[in-house]
């Protein structure tokens, strides 16, 4: 056992830090730290800077313009960009579609799409979930009818994250209904500005617009845009979902959230003393911190076993569950820490450049909102219950 990063890894970390301090703009990191709304340009500015440096496609092999980094390096990179207050790297093209294209796409598709993802020319959205198909994804209804050299697609996709910024969407569609649901699914690459597509906002419980519905009405999609083989889409979809996800626990995010919580608990007073000295409250923070530290090691163990070639499928599911519990618990304590200051909701506070006086401290504004929106973490990406099913199926063999 050795808990230390190597000299090279420490130098690597420093290189990332130095680069971020030069290339991540203060304007953007301030917005991220204040939980302000990011627009398309904010995301793209950062991603284009990474792309120019050759650091955008951290999960890609070098032959496709990726970094070729080890899992440990990826982990260090993720930690540093969260610490620096960078916007998240939009994963749909890079981490979801990219690996599927490399594995199952034809040469033309690879040659056309991969560089466009890498150069931020395309913004991809994910067209998986439907109103009637959440956890039971294979039951999806969006239909693609064969019409010679193209398909005619009809249906509705939902929970399309940042779809309002996208120009492309990869969709799971039904191409055969006379078989087991899993065997009749195909994987299509679609232009969002095709006639017949409409993207409508879904406002989530925090009052924000991040996810969308995508309606498809008689949309013409050339057969050139079929990925892999017809009716094999389920295999590709699963490949996408089980593709190496060492960052799934969200350790860096929880770490910075707990640090934030401790800062707030030192500034907030109860019975004339800092809240962090209150035995009841501090015990809850401490327990969370212990759990997070253990999960960080658990995560590193998974990364290190992935390094030696063992795909951490079971670990990914366990880490997703524990990671979501810890992040939700942290947001719960953040909300509790500020007491009645959690009540005011001034939506304009989350717009760039808003500089009026806040009610209570500035950090209080987003905390209740964050608590509510973070309920999503145990729902998305395969709900915690689905993760448990996956583990039971693969590990218990019952």
């Amino acid at each position, binding site marked *: *056992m050795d*808990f230390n*990063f190597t000299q090279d890894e420490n130098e690597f970390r420093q290189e990332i830090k130095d680069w971020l301090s030069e290339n991540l703009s203060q304007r953007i990191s301030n917005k991220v730290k204040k939980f302000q709304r990011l627009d398309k340009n904010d995301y793209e500015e950062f991603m284009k800077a990474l792309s120019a440096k050759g650091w955008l496609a951290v999960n890609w092999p070098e032959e496709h313009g990726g970094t070729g980094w080890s899992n440990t390096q990826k982990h260090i990179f993720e930690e540093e960009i969260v610490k620096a207050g960078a916007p998240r790297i939009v994963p749909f093209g890079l981490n979801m579609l990219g690996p599927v294209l490399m594995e199952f796409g034809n040469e033309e598709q690879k040659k056309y799409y991969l560089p466009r993802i890498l150069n931020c020319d395309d913004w991809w959205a994910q067209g998986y979930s439907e109103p009637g198909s959440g956890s039971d994804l294979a039951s999806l209804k969006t239909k693609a009818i064969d019409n010679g050299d193209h398909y005619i697609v009809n249906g509705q996709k939902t929970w399309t994250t940042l779809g309002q910024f996208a120009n492309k969407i990869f969709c799971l569609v039904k191409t055969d209904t006379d078989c087991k649901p899993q065997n009749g699914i195909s994987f299509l690459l679609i232009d969002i500005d095709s006639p017949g597509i409409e993207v409508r906002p879904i406002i989530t419980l925090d009052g924000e617009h991040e996810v969308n519905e995508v309606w498809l009405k008689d949309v013409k999609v050339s057969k050139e845009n079929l990925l892999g083989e017809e009716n094999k889409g389920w295999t590709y979809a699963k490949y996408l979902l089980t593709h190496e996800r060492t960052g799934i626990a969200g350790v860096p995010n929880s770490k910075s959230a707990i640090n934030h919580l401790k800062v707030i608990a030192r500034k907030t007073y109860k019975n004339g003393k800092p809240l962090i000295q209150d035995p009841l409250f501090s015990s809850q923070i401490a327990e969370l911190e*212990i759990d997070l530290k253990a999960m960080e090691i658990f995560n590193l163990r998974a990364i290190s076993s992935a390094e030696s070639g063992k795909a951490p499928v079971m670990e990914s599911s366990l880490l997703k569950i524990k990671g979501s519990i810890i992040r939700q618990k942290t947001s719960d304590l953040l909300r509790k820490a500020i007491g009645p200051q959690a009540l005011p909701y001034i939506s304009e506070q989350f717009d760039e450049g808003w500089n009026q006086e806040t009610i209570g401290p500035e950090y209080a504004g987003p905390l209740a909102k964050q608590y509510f929106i973070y309920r999503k973490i145990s729902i998305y990406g395969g709900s915690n*219950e689905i993760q448990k099913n996956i583990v039971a199926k693969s590990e218990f063999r*019952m």
Partner: protein
Amino acid sequence: MHFNLSEERKMLKESCDRLLNDHYTQYKNHHEVSRSETGFNKKFWKECSEIGMLSALISPNFNGLGGTGEDIMIVFELIGKHLVVEPFLSSGILSITSLTNSKDIETSVLDEISSASKIYAFGHSEVDTRYDETYIKTKANYKNDAVFLTGQKSFVLNGDFADKLICTARFSGNDFDQNGFGIYEIDKTHCDIRSYNTIDGYRAAELKFSETPAKELCKNSDAYNALLETLYAGAFALSAESIGAMQVCFNMTLEYLKTREQFGKPIGSFQALQHRMVDVMIEIEQAKSAVMLAAGTYKADKDTKYKNISAAKNLVGRAGKLVAEECIQLHGGIAMTWEYNLHNYAKRLVMIDHLMGDSDHHLEKFKLYSNY
């Protein structure tokens, strides 16, 4: 960074595992051993010593072959796996740590321990002092060049059959002071001993002494430092032990879910039970991770070391209780019987939280060492 054991340690682990397995499968359960006259098997203790399980707990500075966090973790995980009642904690970790942190200790004393020729026990808790580190009421009375102890030590593991007892006792100040106490060695022939078995099948004793002649090992700040080192060494060893026992509970339960049928199918096919098993699995991985971190920082500065051990002991306390309760529930009625071995593991898991500071105690200590 990596989390693998070196080849040497893998070999240590395998040979110890084999020895413990061969020995312990001879018994129906560990109660059989701990109810014997001595409370453990002397011949087997000697065998453990011969394959190096005791010198694995002692650093090369004191003629041992190990003593790192990793060594202790390996040995104690196996102790948890086989519910070993031999005095690895008392004559092993606790006595070794208190002795090696004392002044001018001779290596020959540790050789006696590692060769199993002498058994030591460590007495610190008193009947009503709970887990407090420095609440010591036993008195040390210095007369001329000699010192005599008067008082009582409770829950002394293997205290009945030890040759020597190491005890804390106070010579000045208030009951809670960090100063004014020492660590002493006394001969068991001078004590009044009441021996008993514990709920989880181990052996302990109440020791009473009155003006009993003692030998000073250290006092004042030296004693305080040695005591903390000892208590934390014990907490760490128990945390590792807990991991071994948790894994057995989990495996037994998984096996049972696959074979026990109700409503015409294995009960493990029911989602309600599967999901609970995954929750148990997550907490075992968490606990393991915390113990690994504590092992990796066992030789670090004291604040880091104690912080990580307290984190591990707290997490192991919570996880151990969850594992014990869930594994009993998932088994159902069979787990309530003496006959079925699960209860022994469940009891050990819960009782580990009653030794060397429970999860609440260590949560407070974690806060202390994290500067809350």
